[in-house]
């Protein structure tokens, strides 16, 4: 039932987009699609007993548990706000000729389709089905990256598709292994997560670790973990900023979501002793590589993209600790990071409209007189930057603090190493903000560009997201805590 509702919603949205004539109308449809997805998710939380039976969902291959609905909620919020942002942003892309008018409907249809596929991925009980939807998110989001009429966007999209899809094939081989393992243990093969986690303790450890590593390769590429991260800065920096917010805030979560599910299964077997160090190793390597790439970076969107890799690394480290408290804060970090990163990309998009190089998305941003021309975006970057490096009272501070505290109980040297790396990341952000935002035009070198009049539809989402990450940091309602605790229990940690 619920799945049919979501699918109907997307079909309606795409049909309406095809019928609309102006950009305003198309955009309104897109905002409404996000909003209804959000309302439906809230309806499920308040009126449906979670985890649901398959009848309510509509198929035995799907289910809704707390983690799934939590991810859908995050996705719906970001999609709605990014669609609102796109109202002004896409207008400006059209005016500058960066997006062709003929591509508008394709852009918004892909947008709605991506939201549907994401919802289906998060509600998949069957891991192979999840794999297919995750793979489709890659293809559709690559289309959104490639839609700008620039050759480098096509380059970035092709790189993204090939790295992610090739790695995802390894995941599929891992899933075939898992199917065979479940068939030899249970008699009938299954890839349904709920069945797998129930019987996981009987699975042979040696095979499980091979299977985990294979599945991890693909999902790590989806979430930009080192050494499969090379597509991420390119794609995130060159995509239209509304799309960057989705790529970073929602698409990366798909990979981490899959890793969490898979790790929950392996956590029931003795193989966890080998799986945890693997996660920790790749987590720390990702943080390390990302922060040292951040230091010399002079392109704002790339800097933010590298920070995403760093945060994915932190989540992996938190997972590797594998205590219930650590998992709790990893789940919280998924949300805190998603909102913070979306706000950063949306602010960066405003600056990008004002200062971007006309020649290449790779070029250094020539930011000058930022407080005079774009004060809101400047403060968005400063506050978002403070939030993402983990300054209280923003939400990311708490998740980072508790993940690190939990890490400290396992290994002190690793904690020190991670702390040093996080400090480097913070300095990279600080250095960028101080050097770029202090540039002012002088009479010898006046600022020759027209000031970009930011429409309020682009300002409102930034303000809402900043408000959201502040509230999430200072107010922990009992409902939120019990909700996330429920996720941890369902994952059997």
């Amino acid at each position, binding site marked *: 039932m619920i799945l049919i509702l979501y699918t109907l919603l997307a079909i309606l949205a795409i049909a309406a987009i095809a019928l609309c004539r102006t950009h305003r109308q198309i955009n309104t449809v897109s905002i409404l699609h996000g909003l209804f997805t959000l309302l439906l998710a809230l309806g499920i939380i308040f009126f449906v007993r979670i985890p649901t039976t398959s009848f309510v969902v509509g198929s035995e291959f799907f289910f809704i548990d707390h983690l799934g609905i939590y991810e859908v909620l995050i996705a719906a919020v970001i999609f709605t706000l990014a669609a609102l942002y796109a109202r002004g942003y896409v207008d400006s892309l059209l005016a500058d000729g960066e997006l062709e008018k*003929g*591509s508008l409907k394709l852009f918004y249809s892909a947008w709605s389709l991506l939201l549907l596929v994401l919802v289906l991925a998060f509600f998949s009980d069957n891991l192979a089905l999840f794999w297919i939807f995750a793979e*489709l998110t890659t293809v559709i989001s690559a289309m959104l990256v490639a839609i700008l*009429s620039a050759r480098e966007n096509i380059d970035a999209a092709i790189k993204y*598709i090939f790295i992610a899809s090739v790695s995802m*094939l390894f995941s599929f081989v891992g899933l075939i*292994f898992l199917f065979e393992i479940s068939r030899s243990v249970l008699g009938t093969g299954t890839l349904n997560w709920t069945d797998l986690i129930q019987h996981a303790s009987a699975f042979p450890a040696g095979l499980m670790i091979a299977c985990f590593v294979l599945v991890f390769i693909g999902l790590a590429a989806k979430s930009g973990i080192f050494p499969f991260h090379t597509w991420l800065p390119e794609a995130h920096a060159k995509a239209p900023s509304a799309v960057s917010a989705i790529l970073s805030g929602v698409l990366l979560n798909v990979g981490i979501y899959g890793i969490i599910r898979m790790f929950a299964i392996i956590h029931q077997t003795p193989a966890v002793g080998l799986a945890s160090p693997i996660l920790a190793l790749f987590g720390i390597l990702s943080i390390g590589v990302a922060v040292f790439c951040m230091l010399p970076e002079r392109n704002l969107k790339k800097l933010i993209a590298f920070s995403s890799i760093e945060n994915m690394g932190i989540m992996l480290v938190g997972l590797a600790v594998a205590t219930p408290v650590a998992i709790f804060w990893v789940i919280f970090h998924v949300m805190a990071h998603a909102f913070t990163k979306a706000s950063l990309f949306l602010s960066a998009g405003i600056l990008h409209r004002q200062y971007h190089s006309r020649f290449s998305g790779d070029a250094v941003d020539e930011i000058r007189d930022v407080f005079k021309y774009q004060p809101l975006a400047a403060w968005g970057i400063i506050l978002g930057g403070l939030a993402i490096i983990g300054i209280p009272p923003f939400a990311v501070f708490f998740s980072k603090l508790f993940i690190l505290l939990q890490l400290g109980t396992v290994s002190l040297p690793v904690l020190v190493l991670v702390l040093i790396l996080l400090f480097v990341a913070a300095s990279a952000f600080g250095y960028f903000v101080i050097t770029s935002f202090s540039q002012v035009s002088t009479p010898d070198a006046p600022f020759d560009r027209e000031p970009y009049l930011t429409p309020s539809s682009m300002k409102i989402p930034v303000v809402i997201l900043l408000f959201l990450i502040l509230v999430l940091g200072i107010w922990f309602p009992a409902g939120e805590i019990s909700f996330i605790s429920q996720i941890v229990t369902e994952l059997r940690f």
Partner: protein
Amino acid sequence: MIDPAYVEGFVKILFVCVIVTAAYIISTRNLLTLVSVYAAQSFILVLMALTLWAVEGSPVLLAIAGITFLSKVLIIPYFITSIQEKIRIKRDLRFHFLSPTTSLIISIGLMLVIYIALSRIAQETTGTSSLFFFGAVIGISLMMMGMMVTFSRKRAITKVLGYLTMENGVLLFGLFVTELPFIIEFLIIIDLIILVLLTTILTVGLDSTLEEYHQRIHRFYLWEDEEAP
């Protein structure tokens, strides 16, 4: 009933054919034959699925053979060939890191490594026959060889063929190791077709200048909804 020894011999011959096609895909510079070799490789997989069906009689295998034939022997090669005619690229001369000879030597090494690794795993699961074990080894090797093509070639259209070869490897592995539900095989094919469509259309853009690209894109009537006839 068919004699099992005869079937085993036949499947082994098909294995050799798969390896030969993979070696050709790795080393050739000629794009036109690349597609036909890919189609031939997919056809060999269809034959394998049919042979297994003749022995085991499972209708899923027959269905897999059917959709593989339709999608990978007919539709995808036809689509890529028509794209190639449009962009008029006949040869892919540039190799990124590996020359064809080193690629071939590396793939031989990889096959040995995979053989050793899988025979360790096979020790844990008892009761797998040698044919199925070889199917798994060849499947993973084919994947690795496809991956080398994807990463060592410069042209995106050759990369697509590398990816398709990888996918054939996964199919082969799946055929011999376990029996996945048909719906999943079907959805993978759908995913594959979308991916090939998108990447080849983007390739048209990469392999030409931007102005030409827009002209070419318009021929597919994808980005212009008003001007389509």
